[in-house]
């Protein structure tokens, strides 16, 4: 998704943050906090928890920016991973690992909150969102269980009673289908 110009811009921002520049960090926040917050909401199902998790993720990112390696992943992917891991840790410490069937609900939590508070969702992406909703249900469940539920392949295989090999091939298919939507 990132063009060369975007990539250069990102590298400039990251470089400044590595130098301790807080204004650059504010820029990073403006770019990515929306996607990060959305993940927190989906994973934690509670807006107070989600806000705490976002704050914690952002502070982690600031403190650990020196360990960010741009040859490994883009800054956005790095932030998404921090966010997911922060939420997974919170879910664990709250001792409330969801059931897979609950994840579908937690993801649709977002749609309900959307109706309650308008203008929060990015309207440019409605079409893409609809396309993702139309994804085959068994593929969508896999993506949600892994990405928002923090389940491993083995856990998904056990809980959904699908052979591990099938989980693996479906994950590949799922990402390919997503890619078709975004390309």
């Amino acid at each position: 998704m990132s063009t060369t110009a975007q990539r250069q811009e990102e590298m400039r921002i990251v470089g400044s943050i590595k130098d301790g520049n807080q204004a650059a960090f504010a820029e990073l926040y403006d770019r990515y906090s929306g996607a990060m917050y959305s993940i927190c909401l989906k994973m934690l199902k509670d807006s107070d928890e989600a806000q705490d998790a976002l704050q914690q993720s952002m502070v982690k990112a600031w403190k650990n920016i020196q360990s960010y390696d741009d040859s490994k992943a883009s800054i956005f992917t790095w932030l998404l991973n921090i966010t997911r891991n922060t939420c997974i840790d919170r879910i664990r410490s709250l001792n409330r690992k969801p059931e897979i069937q609950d994840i579908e609900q937690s993801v649709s939590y977002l749609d309900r909150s959307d109706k309650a508070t308008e203008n929060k969702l990015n309207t440019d992406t409605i079409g893409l969102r609809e396309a993702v909703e139309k994804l085959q249900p068994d593929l969508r469940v896999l993506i949600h269980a892994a990405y928002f539920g923090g389940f491993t392949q083995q856990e998904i295989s056990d809980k959904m009673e699908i052979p591990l090999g099938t989980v693996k091939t479906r994950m590949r298919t799922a990402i390919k289908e997503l890619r078709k939507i975004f390309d």
Partner: protein
Amino acid sequence: MDIQAYIESGIIEAYVLGAVTDKERQEVECMSKIYEEIAAELKVAASTMESFASIDEVKPPAHLKAAILEEIAKSEPKVISIAGNKQETSNDDHTTETISDSTNNNQSWLRVAAAVALAVAATFSYLYVNNNAQLTEIRQQLAVIVDSRDNVSQELEVLRNELSQTKTELAFLQDTATTSVPMKGIPEKAASALATVFWNERSSEAYISVASLPEAPAGKQYQLWAIVDGVPADMGVLEIQLANHLQKVVNIKNAVAFAVTLEDEGGSPTPTLSEMYVIGNVTS
């Protein structure tokens, strides 16, 4: 290493979905360092997940930004920096090394420059050595895997040969033209000894199976004979490890009896009749 198979296994997708174990995560990261194709695949998959995460952006409450910026203002980023920050704005005192500007004299400038150069060199050599060490380790692991695969292939080859031999033997035994000739122990030598010759009259092929024979003394070996037209014909010496196995022996025609004698190692041209252990007649 079949890179395509690795890519198609779905492990990269599981990685970007966060559905891998720590071990698998390290593996994918290692593999993507070694193989460009894997790195490229990983990049595409990660970018897909970025798009996926972007479609549902929700603006966090405005007060949160202020709270976060306030919190980071209080905490320094952990710096493992190799220094080199030219302009420092604020309260960045101990964690980030700063090159202060030209108020210092030239000598201290040189010292700082030298320190920076040294730090840069040390970091690069650390990264280089570290990467090399990882690569060496991966290569060693790969060699071990290849080795064990070769061993398995060899074992498989042995099993295949055994199976094919067993099939041949079974077909031979099931052939209606094959007769079995039990050879019983000579009472004076070994009353309980027993061996059997399986002989196919049509093809002349023969096998021997030893159920029980006293262990041959050192320097001695058992030898199988057929009686053809009243004369003993050499059918070869018996191998040592024979228990419950069939041993192929020399083809023979018109045999009326079979016998085993104990001979000097390597066999003898004529049987030592006083050393006969078992004998059996062909009954047609």
